[in-house]
């Protein structure tokens, strides 16, 4: 059994009829890392999770999860991982506690530990007061939390989270992210798909960007940002303000200028050069710099440049906006 990798996918391919959904995908997820899967709708993220978790058979390729071959040792592999699907799909007619106990029964948690484990998770997710409420009556955030709790009932070594924060409000999404970090600190490997680039940047050790069924890049968030052809921006306000934008456009190292509120936003490839040019200009013109701020490329910029897709498009596709 390989102790290094939690997931190994080799030439993973999936056809639905004639349609190629996942195209020879190769990647490894190291034990103990948070691995992000980013991509627009239809990129193959959920199909990949379904294959990794044994729910769907690959058309070609091989998968090992926690050292087990998914084709021949699926039941053993399933004992070591939990899955949180995109939609909260527990049983509406069962109470919060009964849902967790049923999950414990299915996963073979010893009888004497089931209730205690369920209560621990209810407490962790702030649902202890709702333990006797039917799942159908819980709020969207509570349903999501309980679905995640159910996936953790057997203390898995690996958890698949498919769009965990979709439809959650800001507070719930934030607490969920903290929980993911906490789980990871305890040694749980996390495989996460998300439409939220910021979320991926905050949580993930490495990110794979998937487009049209193929992985186009796998790297750390920092390295992905550095891959972007740099477009640094510098926001500046002078006193008095120059009336002509053209003067600023003529500055060396600045290739674009936009009005931004009460000031200007200057774009260029090198931040030190832009800042230097701004100070030289102010000094030559006898202007005072009353405000200056700089921004570097984000994961969003990297994503846009690598995929050609605006991040807003993903959120709209997902019905988030």
């Amino acid at each position, binding site marked *: 059994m390989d102790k290094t990798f939690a997931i190994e996918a080799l030439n993973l391919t999936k056809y639905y009829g004639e349609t190629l959904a996942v195209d020879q995908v190769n990647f490894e997820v190291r034990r103990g890392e948070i691995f992000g899967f980013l991509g627009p709708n239809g990129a193959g993220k959920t199909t990949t999770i379904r294959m990794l978790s*044994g729910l769907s058979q690959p058309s070609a390729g091989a998968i090992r999860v926690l050292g087990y071959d998914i084709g021949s040792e699926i*039941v053993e592999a399933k*004992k070591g991982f939990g899955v949180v699907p995109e*939609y909260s*799909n527990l049983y509406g007619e069962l109470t919060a506690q009964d849902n967790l106990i*049923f999950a414990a029964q*299915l996963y073979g948690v010893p009888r004497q530990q089931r209730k205690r484990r369920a209560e621990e998770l209810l407490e962790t997710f702030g649902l202890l007061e709702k333990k006797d409420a039917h799942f159908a009556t819980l709020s969207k955030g509570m349903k999501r939390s309980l679905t995640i709790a159910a996936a953790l009932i057997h203390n898995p070594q690996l958890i698949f989270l498919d769009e965990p924060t979709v439809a959650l409000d800001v507070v719930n999404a934030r607490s969920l992210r903290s929980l993911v970090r906490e789980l990871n600190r305890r040694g749980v490997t996390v495989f996460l798909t998300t439409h939220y680039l910021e979320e991926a940047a905050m949580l993930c050790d490495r990110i794979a960007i998937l487009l049209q069924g193929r992985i186009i890049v796998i790297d750390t968030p920092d390295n992905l940002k550095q891959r972007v052809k740099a477009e640094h921006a510098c926001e500046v306000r002078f006193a008095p303000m120059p009336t002509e934008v053209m003067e600023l456009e003529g500055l060396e190292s600045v290739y674009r200028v936009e009005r931004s509120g009460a000031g200007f936003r200057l774009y260029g490839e090198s931040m030190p050069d832009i800042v230097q040019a701004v100070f030289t200009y102010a000094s030559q013109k006898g202007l005072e710099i009353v405000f200056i701020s700089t921004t570097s490329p984000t994961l969003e910029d990297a994503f846009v440049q690598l995929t050609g897709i605006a991040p807003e498009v993903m959120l709209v596709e997902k019905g988030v906006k």
Partner: protein
Amino acid sequence: MWKDNLRGIYYIALKDMKTYYLKPPAVSWGIVFPVAWILAFYLRSPQDFEKLLPGLIAMTVLFSTTAAEAVVINLELRLGSLERLLLAPISLPAVLLGKALGGVIFGLIMTGLVTSSSILLFRPQVNMLYLALILLPSLLVFSSLGALLCVMVKEVFEAQTLLNFPRFLMIFLCGVVYPISAMPVGLMHLAYLLPLTYTVDGLNYALGINGNINIVVDIILLTAFIPIFIFPAAKLLAKRFA
């Protein structure tokens, strides 16, 4: 692994009992319909009712098990919660057997009530061993048949509609409504292809009425129908999630 599967089958059936047995489609098709049918037959000819008992018990087995399958499978297919079971560390056939067991238990409760009240009211000659040996495979056969048809569609109403075709075909050809021996040859052959025919025949033996086939043959053929339905059901379910 077999321990994991047995555990899964047991807890899935237990959860289905808690969750779905009082759902309207289970009550209407699995309880109200057979009871209404029995009452209709009784009111029409109370003096011959004893002779109709095997057919009516068989019909109760058929409707209660298949109605329960439509609920335990299709409600979960629609809500996506069947996926949860397939993600658990148990095999797909075990998930399906758990679902079939849910139908068997619902059918057993209904059939037990109908059979015991009929025995108390009409006091027929009952061979309890025959009764058990016929009812057990029958419950499994019709629950498996229900599972097979239910995994073909998504919604509960679609499943109930689809189930009505074999249900009514079997009711009219099993020998209760019209004697098999008096049927045209083609229909007679068809009748012997249907499991309800053997349930009715076996129940005839169990309730002191002479059957046409042989109780041992009835039991063997009913048992043989179980894999004929359950294996394709497992294949279809796997294909559905492929």
